[in-house]
């Protein structure tokens, strides 16, 4: 196992106060360690030296909870494709490297502290329509509605999203389209989600806009950064679903019945 000597440039910030980069030397880092374990080592040293350790979000360290969130050398989750920060290992770096470590930057993701950001905007988008309105206990027998393997697989592709926000962080416009399209796309693809498709699509997109994310310019930086490699074709689907839902809303389709009495 080799040891690496690294120079870090780490973003330090407390709440809404202006932040800055701190230069931190990180000598003798085992190359088998994960990126977060490297940060653990750095923090232990900072604490022992009486300094403030670097705050960052993490939990599962298995690449599934979506909590970890660092922009490493300008790339959300770092240079390895399809990999979260916690699953990135130091053997991807060389001794002597300078590594920039920044938070996931977006207006809609305000910095909490150092590398921790507030991604509650994602929860509010889900709240706007990211569900099937079925009550507990009101479900039909599971095999009653057959779902073709292709459809189920496609829905699963979208459902793999871990809600990390790397798509937003890597997008030149801090757009959340990949996330929203994956979330809406999963449910819009499955028969279970069909009844609420239009309402869901409109509501989720509107909430996304209200949160202050940017707009998609079809550059696909999101897909390249996404640890689950969610395809940008989900964005195409969201665009289509949104267009259809908007036109229906525009002409009032589906409302004739209820308004017939007016």
């Amino acid at each position, binding site marked *: 196992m080799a040891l690496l000597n690294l120079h870090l440039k780490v973003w330090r910030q407390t709440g809404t106060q202006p932040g800055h980069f701190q230069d931190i030397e990180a000598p003798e880092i085992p190359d088998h360690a994960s990126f977060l374990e490297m940060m653990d080592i750095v923090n232990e040293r900072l604490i022992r030296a009486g300094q403030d350790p670097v705050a960052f979000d*993490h939990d599962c*360290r*298995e690449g599934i909870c979506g909590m970890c969130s660092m922009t490493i050398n300008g790339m959300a989750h770092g240079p390895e494709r399809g990999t979260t920060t916690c699953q990135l290992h130091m053997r991807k770096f060389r001794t002597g490297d300078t590594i920039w470590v920044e938070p996931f930057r977006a207006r809609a993701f305000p910095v909490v502290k150092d590398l921790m950001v507030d991604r509650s905007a994602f929860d509010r988008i*889900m709240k706007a329509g990211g569900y*099937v309105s079925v009550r507990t206990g009101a479900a039909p027998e599971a095999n009653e509605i*057959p779902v073709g393997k292709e459809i*189920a697989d496609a829905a699963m592709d979208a459902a*793999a999203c871990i*809600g990390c926000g790397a798509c937003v962080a890597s997008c030149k416009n801090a757009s959340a389209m990949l996330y929203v399209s994956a979330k809406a796309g999963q449910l819009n693809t499955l028969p279970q989600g069909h009844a609420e498709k239009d309402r869901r699509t409109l509501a989720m997109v509107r909430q996304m806009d209200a949160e202050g994310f940017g707009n998609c310019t079809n550059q696909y930086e999101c897909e390249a950064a996404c640890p689950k490699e969610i395809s940008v074709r989900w964005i195409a689907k969201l665009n289509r679903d949104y267009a259809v839902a908007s036109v229906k809303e525009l002409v009032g389709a589906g409302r004739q019945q209820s308004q017939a009495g007016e």
Partner: protein
Amino acid sequence: MKLDSKIPSGPMAEKWSRHKQDSKLINPKNKRKYSIIVVGSGLAGAAAAASLSELGYKVKCFCFQDSPRRAHSIAAQGGINAAKNYQNDGDSVHRLFYDTVKGGDFRAREANVHRLAEVSVNIIDQCVAQGVPFAREYGGGLANRSFGGAQVSRTFYARGQTGQQLLLGAYSALSKEIARGGVEMHTRTEMLDLVVADGETKGIITRNLVTGKVEAHAADTVLLCTGGYGNVFFLSTNAMGCNVTATWRAHRRGATFANPCYTQIHPTCIPVSGDYQSKLTLMSESLRNDGRVWVPKKAEDCGKPASQIPEADRDYFLERKYPSFGNLAPRDISSRAAKEACDDGRGVGPGGRGVYLDFSEAINEFGENVIKERYGNLFDMYERITGESAYKQPMRIYPAVHYTMGGLWVDYNLMSNLSGLHVLGEANFSDHGANRLGASALMQGLADGYFVIPTTVANYLVTQKPGAVTTAHPAFKEALEAANGRINQLLNVKGKRTVDSFHRELGLLVWDKCGMGRNRAGLEEALRRIPEIRAEFWENVLVPGSGSVANPELEKAGRVADFMEFAELLCRDALDREESCGGHFREEHQFPDGEAKRDDENFCYVSAYEYSGDLSKPILHKEPLTFEEVHLTLRSYK
């Protein structure tokens, strides 16, 4: 104290339906007046919060992560069991019930397990309706696979992400209820204490992890759905934030803690690679469907590359010892077998703590593509972590702490001995006995949250006047002061050692003495050492920063402080239980061939500990276990 399990009378198969019949109802208008605190947003918590809100209760839900979707349930890979018998392979509610009781080494309550098996089928229906993308067959029906410890295919799965998909389903239901106004969600909020007012559980004390504000919340009942305590071992497959704080604080307020020594070691984890390691990573058990476990027959072969060890010199020890289950033997058994091989000096990889999980035969038989389709993401994960490709050489695996069967004691209504405190999911002790079968924790969390608590919580609530106790009650003031006091105490030690260094020291000790194999001498040593480490912690820990901002070190310190106390109870229970059962293996109690030796005569009970005020002198209460349906037998997987 008498522990009344409140098991309904009647035949096993009718207990739950009778209990539902007999449970109290609250009319919709009155439900709105009751408020419920749900701590935790994992499968158990999210399912409970959503379902209770649908019923009309006012729910406040808490989690320490930044979103309910990140609860540790998200990490479950393998699958969820249900007695659907879609495969027509002879499965039934009774068989799932039987397998679970046997898998738990006859240390679980029959009635609870039967209920679990009954509602398992509803869970799948519910999740499918929510849009959970379970694996399907071409015809459009749901697919199944088999899992350790079962001879039928009853496990439903969603690639390697079953936990995430189920949790996203529950989270979507929760989101729907948050939108409707039925649930008030508090993220990045950690529960620090439980508030018991005049003998009834009426609230919690929390700390806002962003602002540092310590606050009191009152409600008519409290549900703890805070997961397991596996991180007492420092290295485990649990997420970094998993903690015992919520349940431990409840214990200190009077809730009995049951069977803490029942901890599960998962056989297929990636071995430790160095002392910087922060956690261990599980490789789904499903890998054992196609992988064969072996070590070299001769210790001197261990240094050689696997490819240079001829077939004849390999010891496929699971197949050899357990011919009928082979590589699919239950977790505790497989883990112990791996430990034995390594103790025998035949372990592979750095430090000799690893065994091979070999796919070469499956790759030859089905082709690399098929294996890639089945396990591609796991192989990728393995390669990212170890830098080795499991297509080219066998994986190295070693057991690691994974799940904790013990937890707060609850009755059939999921209520603790502490009136008004309900405990769901991994946080309670109820359904898995001394060992949990694969794909059963997800089932239990969702069963508790979706189907059990919505019925049983009313039995308690009808005895309460809604809103009777508010945060103005002196019990809240006392608890607030205590919580603030602890925070200040932690910050003011200003010692020399980091929180992690203490956690690591404690974890290593507990793993060493109270891990896969336990014996009296080791446990006694641990019981001597733990109070010393704890004392040093309070004198020498260094927690930087202040309590009034986001301070992850302070959060960790609080959790580790509770692990320090809990670890003692864990070892004490392990010492007290002079038998081997399930995940609890006392080296003194084994058959000559190394199999666990249960002692039904003397230990067929649940150990429930009451806090006495002295950490070293908990009061043991015993709930005897009686078996009507299942005959106590030697648990053999040969």
